[in-house]
């Protein structure tokens, strides 16, 4: 794919049709926002739920999502045409559950939902939890999301 943009951990990117945004997720969450009128979309790959005052805003759900939305608005996107799909938030298969890190996947998912709700951006699909790694491809021609996990592919079309 010529239009493929790889996004690393704690990074985000905004692009337009026909780009494809790809990232690889463990306990992190990938937030894919699509503006269906303009066919512009953005992907944020967050590592942790809440920013404790770190200057690296793209690492945390509660500070990365506002940046992502701002960048989309700057490109002329309208909030009412935006929808989100989220993926990731896996947990270690065997892990003492009293350890805070054991719940990071869950906490990332929850913080992501909250941050999106603040902007009133609906989540139209979720592929979250479990213990699988996920490779996700976000296609900006129509906003579909391909999730590859445990050797299987799933496609989410709703925008």
């Amino acid at each position, binding site marked *: 794919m010529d239009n493929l943009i790889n996004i*690393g*951990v*704690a*990074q985000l990117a905004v692009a337009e049709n026909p780009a494809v945004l790809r*990232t*690889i*997720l*463990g*306990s*992190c969450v990938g937030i894919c926002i699509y503006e269906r009128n303009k066919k512009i979309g953005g992907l944020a*790959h967050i*590592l*942790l739920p809440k920013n404790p005052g*770190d200057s*690296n805003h793209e*690492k945390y759900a509660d500070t990365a999502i506002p940046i992502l939305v701002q960048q989309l608005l700057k490109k002329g996107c309208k909030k009412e045409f935006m929808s989100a799909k989220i993926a*990731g938030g*896996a*947990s*270690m*298969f*065997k*892990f*003492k559950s009293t*350890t*805070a*890190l*054991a719940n*990071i*996947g869950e906490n990332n998912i929850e913080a992501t939902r909250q941050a999106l709700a603040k902007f009133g951006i609906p989540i139209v699909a979720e592929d979250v939890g*479990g*213990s*699988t*790694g996920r*490779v996700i491809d976000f296609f900006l021609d129509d906003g579909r999301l391909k999730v*590859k*996990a*445990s*050797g299987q592919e799933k496609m989410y079309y709703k925008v």
Partner: protein
Amino acid sequence: MHEHIQQRIQSIIQNVDQLPSLPDVVSRIINMVNDPNVSFKQVADEIAKDQAITANILKLCNSAYFSKGKEISSIDRAIVILGLKEVKDIVVLATTKSVLNKVIIGYDLARGELWKHGVAVAMLAKKIATECSQKAVADIAFTGGIIHDVGKTVLALFVQNTFKDILTAVTEKNITFQEAEKLIMGFDHQQIGEQVTIKWKFPKVLQSIVRYHHEPINAPNEHKKIVSIVHIANTLCLMAGIGIGSDGLYHELNQDAVTMLGLHDPQLEKFYSDIPELMARAKDIL
């Protein structure tokens, strides 16, 4: 159990030609660094014999991750400025890339992912060692981190053929992916990796890291701490999605390993949280 697959793996182990190769200079350098009777000059001469790797090594010495600010233009200078142990780590980086920087089918890792994973685990393990009063062996944690998954390069094809059975065993028997590898194929990637490090004439401590990185508690007593360091670094990097494949997070974070190093939640979370910054520093060594 797939017996024909077990037999094929057995024959690969017995016929070491089929295991990945590394130039002999690597094990010579690793062993020289641990020998107090060896001089800087002898190490520099040994590296300089190999023109091809020398150029690569100098490039790595001047990378953001290793550079101390001064331009390094010879191996002699590199040893003076960076120290023997750091130069040894750089030799390992320069020579193992061709082994690890591959598409790993079966585990569904695109080209570069296993390499990136090894480098990430190496950097994080070195950091954990340094912060857990194990600074003297931080370089060994680094080397071990790079190569800990080398067995996957050999096992990949067989994992591809048995993937469904492995995953079924994981969910039905509630065992980790690596335990399921052993159950279904007779071997796991740690055991194959150990054979590779034996072929490479690597010291026992590196063999232990590769052999026990998913089960640090079974490592020989004298290696338990260092194996635990790489175990934790590996777990955190997988959680951050660095080099995560079809085996996903079907692994274990061993609580005894965490306790042994005297680590607590906030420190673990800090190490996890630091991964993006580490990766940014690693850009020009990947």
